[in-house]
């Protein structure tokens, strides 16, 4: 990984491939409640696209896409979105994750359920992506880090 001889075919192919993987991952996250998929699978695919860049173009260049220091904060943000949605419905009189208590105006009960599940999936996707990339970065750093 520390060698400077990188294959140009590998770099070009993975740079072309990564945006399409990310686009499909976003489709999987946002289409999760109509078809197969959801936050976890989409987040894992987002992490796979970042890891593809990490492996092919190296850690320095791929940090332009996702920095090493972002792992824990973005993972915590995803968990916060998940828990915050649940606790918001709890505060507004419902039970945990009872979506039709969400404070979004002019939406029917079914649309509120759809919007709530979308929020949950975005949170789960962010958390899964950040934690998987963080595990990779920690392993690459090796023992002796913080």
């Amino acid at each position: 990984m520390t060698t400077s001889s990188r294959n140009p075919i590998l770099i070009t192919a993975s740079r072309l491939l990564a945006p399409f993987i990310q686009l499909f991952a976003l489709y999987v996250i946002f289409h999760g409640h109509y078809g197969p998929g959801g936050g976890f699978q989409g987040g894992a695919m987002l992490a796979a696209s970042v890891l593809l860049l990490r492996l092919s173009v190296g850690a320095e260049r791929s940090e332009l896409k996702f920095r090493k220091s972002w792992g824990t904060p973005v993972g915590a943000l995803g968990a916060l979105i998940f828990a915050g949605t649940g606790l918001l419905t709890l505060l507004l009189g419902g039970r945990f994750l009872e979506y039709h208590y969400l404070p979004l105006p002019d939406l029917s009960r079914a649309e509120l359920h759809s919007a709530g599940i979308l929020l949950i999936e975005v949170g789960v996707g962010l958390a899964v992506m950040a934690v998987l990339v963080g595990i990779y970065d920690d392993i690459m750093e090796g023992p002796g880090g913080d």
Partner: protein
Amino acid sequence: MYFGLETTLGLFLLAAALIALRLRNLLAAAVTLSVFSFISALIYLVMGAVDVAFTEAVVGAGITGVLFIVVLFHTSRRSVD
């Protein structure tokens, strides 16, 4: 319903598992484990569990393979036992 297909995939699954166990080159063994994950994802797909198949393909073949390969960078390439 798809008995022949399931049997064939099951035999491939067994072959991939045995090859991954027998290989001395650990990088090749990690790649063969990815093959194992893809075949088991196909079996889930044939059995109608699309969501499980999706998760198996993404996590088992993608993330786990990458993590195995990353660990191999820190150790030796060949098994000694």
